[in-house]
C-alpha cells in the first residue's frame, strides 16, 4: 500500500518536473497560428478586409472574429491556402470586400503633384518619398499596390499602372495543350 502511494507520488513528481522543464525549454513566443496566417496573407496592408493591415486581420481570423474570404488581393489561391491551414471549407471572396484583380503599382504624376504629403501619411509601407512642398515619388520596388494613397490625394495625381515586365520577372507562357481529343476539336 505504502509503496504504491510512493511510486505514484514519485511518478507525479517526475512528470511534473518534466512538464515544467518542457514548458521553459520549448516555450513558444507569441501565437504561432497568427504568425502562420500572417505568412499566407499578401501583405498589401490595404485594409480591404476591414482591419488596419494584414496582421490585425490574421489575429481576427485566429480569434474567429473574421472569415477567411475577406482578402481580395490574396485572391482565390490565398483563401484556399487559409482554408487548408485552418481546416475550414473554402468559400468565394466576399463581394463586399472588393474583387480580385491583377497587381498594380501606384505612380505619381510629378508634374501635377503639389507636395502635400497626404499620400506619404497614407502609405502603410513607407513606399512614398518626398517632403512638404517637394515633389513626391513612389519607390516602385516597395509599393504593394494597396491604393490607399489614391483617395487622400487632393489633385488626383496618383494612378495605378501594371508593373513592368523585366527580363528577371518575365515568365514562360504555358504551352497550349488539351486534355482530350474532344477538347482539341472543340477548340478548333
Amino acid at each position, binding site marked *: 500500500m505504502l509503496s504504491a502511494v510512493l511510486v505514484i507520488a514519485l511518478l507525479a513528481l517526475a512528470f511534473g518536473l518534466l512538464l515544467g522543464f518542457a514548458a521553459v525549454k520549448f516555450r513558444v513566443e507569441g501565437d504561432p497560428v497568427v504568425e502562420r496566417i500572417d505568412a499566407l496573407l499578401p*501583405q498589401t496592408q490595404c485594409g480591404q478586409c476591414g482591419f488596419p493591415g494584414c*496582421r490585425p486581420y490574421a489575429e481576427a481570423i485566429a480569434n474567429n472574429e473574421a472569415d477567411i474570404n475577406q482578402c481580395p488581393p490574396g485572391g482565390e489561391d490565398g483563401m484556399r491556402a487559409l482554408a487548408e491551414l485552418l481546416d475550414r471549407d473554402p468559400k468565394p471572396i466576399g463581394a463586399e470586400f472588393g474583387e480580385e484583380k491583377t497587381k498594380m503599382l501606384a505612380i505619381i504624376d510629378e508634374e501635377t503633384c503639389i507636395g502635400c504629403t497626404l499620400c506619404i501619411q497614407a502609405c502603410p509601407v513607407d513606399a512614398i518619398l518626398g517632403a512638404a512642398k517637394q515633389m513626391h515619388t513612389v519607390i516602385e520596388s516597395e509599393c504593394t499596390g494597396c491604393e490607399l494613397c489614391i483617395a487622400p490625394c487632393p489633385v488626383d495625381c496618383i494612378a495605378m499602372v501594371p508593373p513592368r515586365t523585366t527580363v528577371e520577372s518575365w515568365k*514562360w507562357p504555358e504551352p497550349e495543350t488539351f486534355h482530350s481529343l474532344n477538347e482539341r476539336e472543340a477548340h478548333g
Partner: protein
Amino acid sequence: MAEMRSRPGGPPLHRFPGGLELPDNKAMATTTAIRTAPLPRELVVPLAQHIGDAAKSIAKIGQRVLRGEVIAQPEDAISVPVHSPTSGIVTAIEDRLIPHPSGLTARCVVIEPDGKDDAVEPQPLRDWKNAAPVEIRDHIRAAGIVGLGGAAFPTWVKLDARAPIERLILNGAECEPYISCDDMLMRERANDIVSGALIMLHALQAERCQLAIEDNKPEAEAALRDALATVDDERLELITVPSVYPEGGERQLIQVLTGQEVPHDGLPLDIGVICHNVATAAAVHRAAIHGETLISRVVTVTGRGVTQPANVEARIGTSFHDLIEFCGGYAEDVARLIMGGPMMGFAVSSDDIPLIKATNCILAGSATEAVPARVTLPCIRCGECAQVCPATLLPQTLYAFTRARDFEKVQAYDVFDCIECGCCDLVCPSQIPLVSHFRFAKTEIRGKEMERSKADLARQRFEFRQSRLQREADAQEGKRRRKQETLEKLKSSDSKKNEIQAALERARKKKEKQ
C-alpha cells in the same frame, strides 16, 4: 545504372541514365577554319551577360573607350565586369533588345567603333606559377570571364575551391547537334586550352585534370593529343567518351567520368570535382598570358537557313544580323532563328540582338529543318520520357502536376533538377512540349517565391512603420505630460512661496559673506 564502357587502353567509363543518340549535323560548319568577323558599325554590349546580378555601367555617353576598358563594374558578389570590345565612342546607355526568350529589352552600352581598335595596356599574369590561387582568381574575375559553354556562370566563383578538389574536368563533349565552336577551338587552339588547364589546376590546387571529348571529333582529339605531348604533364589526361546526348551537361559528364552522381541539391564541388568548358580554359589562358579580357568569342553560325555556315570569332556586341550577313546571309527558305542549339536553345524573334558571352550558336533553321507546328495529343502514359531523362525525373508526372497547377507537387518531384535537355520532348509519341511546360512551371514557382519575399519586405516595412508611429505617439504623450506637470508645479502657490523663500535665503547668505 553504371554500365561500364571501357575503351581500349583508357580508364573505365560509366554511363549516365537516359539520353539519346542524335544525328549531329555538325559537319556543315566545320569545313572552314574559324573566320574572324570584321568590326561592325555598332556594338551593343548588355550589362547582364552572366548568371548573377547585372554589372553597373561606369561609362559616360560621348566618352571614348579603348578595347579592354572596363565599361561596367560588378556590384554583387557573383558577377563580373564588362569590357569594351573595341575602341570607340559610347553613343548611348539604354535598353535594347537582348537575346532572351522573352524578347524583352535590357540595359546595354552602345559603342560606335572608330576602327582603330586601340587597346588599354594589357596586364598579363605571366608568373602565374608563383602566384597565389586567389591572385589568379581575381585576375580571371577582372578579365570578365564566364563559362563559355552557354550557362555563363562567372568562372572565378568556380575556381574558389572551399573543399579539396580531386579533379578538374574540362568539358569538350559538345554534345548538342549543330554546335561546333568548341570542336573548332580544340582543333585550332589546343595549346591555349592546355595552358588554360594548367593555370586552372594551379588556381584550384587540384590533383589532376581530365579533358573529355566525344568520339565524334577525331581532329580535335588529335590536336589536343599533340598539345598534351608538348607540355608532357602527367596530371593532364585526354579522355574520349562515346557520343550520347546530353553528355555535355555538367552533371552527366561528371557521372560518365567518375561514376558518381552530383547530389541533386549540391554542387560538383561536393564530390571533389570542378567542371569547366574548354573555351573557358582558352579564355583563362589569354587573360593570364596575354592580359586579354573577354571581349570576343567563337560562335557557330549554322543551319540550312544560312548560306555559308561557319564558326566565327566575333566581338561581343556584334548583332546576329551582321554575323549572318558575314556568313553569306540567309538562305531563301529560312524559317526560324535560334540562339543555342536545336535541343536547348530558344527561338528569337529578331536578328537585331547582340552576340553575348553565352551565345555559343546562332542557328538559322530552314523550312525543312524546322519542326512543323506540333499537334499535341493527350498523354498516354507510355513512360518513354522517363526512360530517356538524364536526371531520372518522371516527366509525365511532372506534366500532370503542371497541368493541374499543383506547383508544390511539381517542386516536390524535383522540377528544378530538369536540365531542359529536350530528350523527353523528342521521344514523346503525343508530341507534348514537355520542356516548355517545365519552363513554365519553373518561372511560375520562382515568381511565387519573388512575391513571397516581396510580401516579407512589405510586412517588415509595415511593422517598422507601426512601431515608429507608436514611438512618435508615445514621445508626444510624454512631452505633453511633462509640460503639464511643470505647469501644475508653477501654478501651485506652494512652490512659488518656496521659490521666494529660497531667493531670500540666497540674498541673505550673500550679505553675510560681504
